[in-house]
């Protein structure tokens, strides 16, 4: 007669325990009351003791492993009792909760095992959700969507479900290309274009699309956020040749005369807005369970004020002329410094620009202004000796560093945007395209 060794609730609030060290090994004789293992609870390290005399068998929880209270971690067999080999391979036998996902064939196999094992019953160690990658494989999908995905070779984990509770339904698959990774950037591709009857939350006239997070995107969001801080930043830097932008600015200011001036910052705002229209993946907000991809570009412009900073917003900056941006930026900055901004004037940005060029800063990293997913930090323009057409020549150069929220923007996505921005600044005429 064998006795199961359970992970016991060693403190009133304990839900799981981590096996720190086994004091007895497989095959060791044990006596009632003897310490079998040290277990770390939510409060302290405690002893797990033997509840029967016999021989320790089938140790199923490795040292360092965390196990839910109530799980069988070993068996105490009577001396000489024949016990089946420790079902190590079968250790992570699914808990009853996930049994639903077993196919008919699987459950029949499991039942067969039970029938052939003499004693004791197979040990079931319940893997905790936190350590089990299985969590991500639970996808809610309609039977029709499953068939379509199977046929098209689409991994349902990568599809954002729009049905109740994030269930993947037919139209989610209709909007994804049948081959390849459906959530691959740009997200514009994931936006439904051919769907006949789309649910209204997405078409309520709001100037954005709310795309639910896919399983994989949820995992990225969760993990990165806990690893690097509330927002998982990464940074991309590029050096821009500002020679042609400088020429353009001089020409424009000459033409404007006393009707105002265009600053480099205005040009950068305009170019950023333009580049964002080409890279909607960067013009987005992270919203807990979904990413909001904006259809409009509103640029937040970091302005230093007496005891801090504020980011007034140039709305629809991609649609405005440089002269208009110049006037608006000047006016907003002035009112920001005088603390005369209305809340509507400093909220709702979809992306931000921070410029410390005037402080002779070569390069810096800016902190993302949530829920926005990106910000660019602009350094000062300096003359540098660079090689152009094989000749060393003096050129005005400027460094731009983009901070990206990795939950929204991946490396290549950010880099592609930055490349477009660089091209626009290096050839300002491109903005007219």
């Amino acid at each position, binding site marked *: 007669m064998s006795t199961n060794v359970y992970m016991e609730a060693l403190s009133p609030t304990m839900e799981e325990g981590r096996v720190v060290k086994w004091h007895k090994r497989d095959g060791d004789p044990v006596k009632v009351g003897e310490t079998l293992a040290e277990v770390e609870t939510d409060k302290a390290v405690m002893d797990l003791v033997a509840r029967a005399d016999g021989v320790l068998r089938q140790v199923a929880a490795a040292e360092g492993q965390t196990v839910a209270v109530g799980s069988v971690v070993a068996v105490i067999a009577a001396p000489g009792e024949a016990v089946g080999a420790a079902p190590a391979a079968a250790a992570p036998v699914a808990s009853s909760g996930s049994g639903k996902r077993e196919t008919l064939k699987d459950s029949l196999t499991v039942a067969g095992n039970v029938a052939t094992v003499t004693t004791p019953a197979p040990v079931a160690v319940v893997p905790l959700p936190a350590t089990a990658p299985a969590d991500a494989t639970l996808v809610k999908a309609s039977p029709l969507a499953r068939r379509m995905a199977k*046929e098209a070779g689409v991994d349902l984990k990568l599809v954002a479900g729009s049905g109740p509770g994030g269930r993947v339904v037919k139209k989610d698959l209709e909007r994804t290309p049948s081959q390849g990774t459906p959530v691959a950037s740009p997200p514009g591709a994931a936006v439904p274009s051919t769907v006949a009857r789309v649910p209204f939350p997405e078409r309520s*006239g709001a100037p954005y699309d709310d795309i639910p997070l896919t399983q994989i995107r949820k995992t990225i969001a969760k993990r990165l956020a806990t690893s690097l801080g509330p927002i998982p930043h990464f940074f991309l830097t590029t050096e821009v040749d500002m020679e042609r932008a400088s020429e353009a600015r001089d020409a424009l200011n000459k033409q404007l005369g006393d009707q105002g001036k265009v600053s480099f910052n205005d040009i950068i705002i305009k170019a950023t807005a333009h580049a964002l229209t080409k890279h909607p993946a960067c013009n987005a907000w992270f919203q807990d369970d979904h990413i909001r991809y904006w259809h409009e570009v509103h640029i937040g412009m970091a302005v230093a004020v007496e005891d801090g900073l504020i980011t007034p917003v140039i709305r629809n900056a991609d649609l405005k002329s440089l002269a208009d941006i110049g006037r608006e930026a000047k006016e907003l900055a002035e009112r920001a410094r005088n603390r005369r901004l209305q809340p509507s004037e400093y909220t709702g940005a979809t992306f931000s620009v921070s410029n410390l060029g005037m402080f002779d800063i070569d390069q810096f990293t800016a902190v993302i202004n949530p829920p926005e997913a990106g910000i660019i930090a602009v350094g000062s323009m300096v003359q540098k000796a660079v090689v152009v057409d094989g000749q060393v020549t003096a050129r005005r150069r400027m460094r731009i560093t983009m901070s990206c929220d990795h939950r929204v923007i991946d490396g290549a996505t950010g880099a592609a945007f930055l490349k477009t921005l660089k091209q626009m600044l290096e050839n300002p005429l491109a903005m007219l395209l």
Partner: protein
Amino acid sequence: MANQFDVIVLGGGPAGYVAAIRAAQLGLSTAVIEKEKLGGVCVNIGCIPTKALLHSAYIASLLREAKEFGVEASTVKTDYGVAMQRSRRVSDQNSKGVEFLMKKNKVTVVKGAGVLQPGRKVKVGSDVYEAKKAVLIATGSRVKGLPQIGLEINKTTVISSDEALFLEKAPASMAIIGAGAVGMEFADIFHAFGTKVTLIEALPRILPLEDGEASDALAKSYKKRGIDVIAGAKVKKGTPGKDTVTLEVEANGATQKIEVATVLMAAGRAVNTENIGLAECGVQVTDRGFIKVDQSLQTTAPGYYAIGDVAGPPMLAHKGMREGVTVAELVAGKKPHAIRYDNVPSVTYCHPEVASIGLTEDQCKERKLDYVPGRFPFSANGRARGTGETEGFVKILRDKKYGEILGAHIVGGHASEIIHELAVARENEYTVEEVELAIHAHPTMSEAVAQAALDSLGRVVDM
């Protein structure tokens, strides 16, 4: 302010009263403005009383065939007036039920004709009510005549369902113009009460929106029991006399004159968009006269929503009810599940009943879909044989590649009840295989659904 609410619903029909209850459930202060009885056309002069009359008709035909079942009812006498009185009691009970629901949910009911005003206001008489969050327009629809061919509703010889529901006795003869759900149901009712019925439909087949096989089955059934069915017919002229109406009907290249005691107009409905202040509030209407709405059912005037018949077809109570719930949830800041307009069941309660959901076979062909039809006749269904309801069939249109249920059509006893299995299946994107895998009780009419699903897979058992 006493006259201020979060939500004001103009119209207490199925869309309006359901919206009001849902809004109240979500904690919004709500008022319903209704100029007549709560429950609207549906409860008072539509769905509900006709179902009562149809059941009277059913009992009459059942008794006439009772001898075969070993029950003798030697002389079956019908009295439309008594059936009508009963149908009125049913309607009144339902309307009172709605009144009770309004009280239970603390919805304020304002009696009177409301007129919209800018600023989310509604004027009733000299009182003005203001909605803090939204005004829901749920003014519904009404029957319409065909004045251009002389058939204006005169309420004596040329009537609509509004009058038909209050007749004291069934007329000796009746021409019903329009063989959609309303025309079909009244043809069934009056025929059972002894009226000589001629059913006239302009389109090539009766029940023009249903699957062709359903239309054919009903045409056959009606003709067999002595209802004249003329489809593809044009009523060129109607001449109402004192006690009769003469119709000139052109069909199959020939014109014939039909003289009847009563003409029942059942050709379409008009929405109630007049004199409710739409233009003044900037609420626009479409070319077809419905209120223009976006995907969230908001009209062109922010804060004004339209639900039910005024918001566009299909003009069905259950579609309006769903819109009411959805808009109430939207206004309360919830994210309701999208309405699947391609999954609204359509039901005609004549005998045999006709119920459908999704695409017809013709629509599948037009869309060049690769489909396989599965059919099962009730004549092969044990339960149907037992009750003598062997007319009709279940037909399921299966997408060949994925097994999606593209459409389902049922003609037969209780079709209106059986269809919902397929509505649930389609809502959840079950394929024909999930439908078939669900064990159906034996013997039931619903088994025909599973058998039709099997037939679409080429492995029908009971046939």
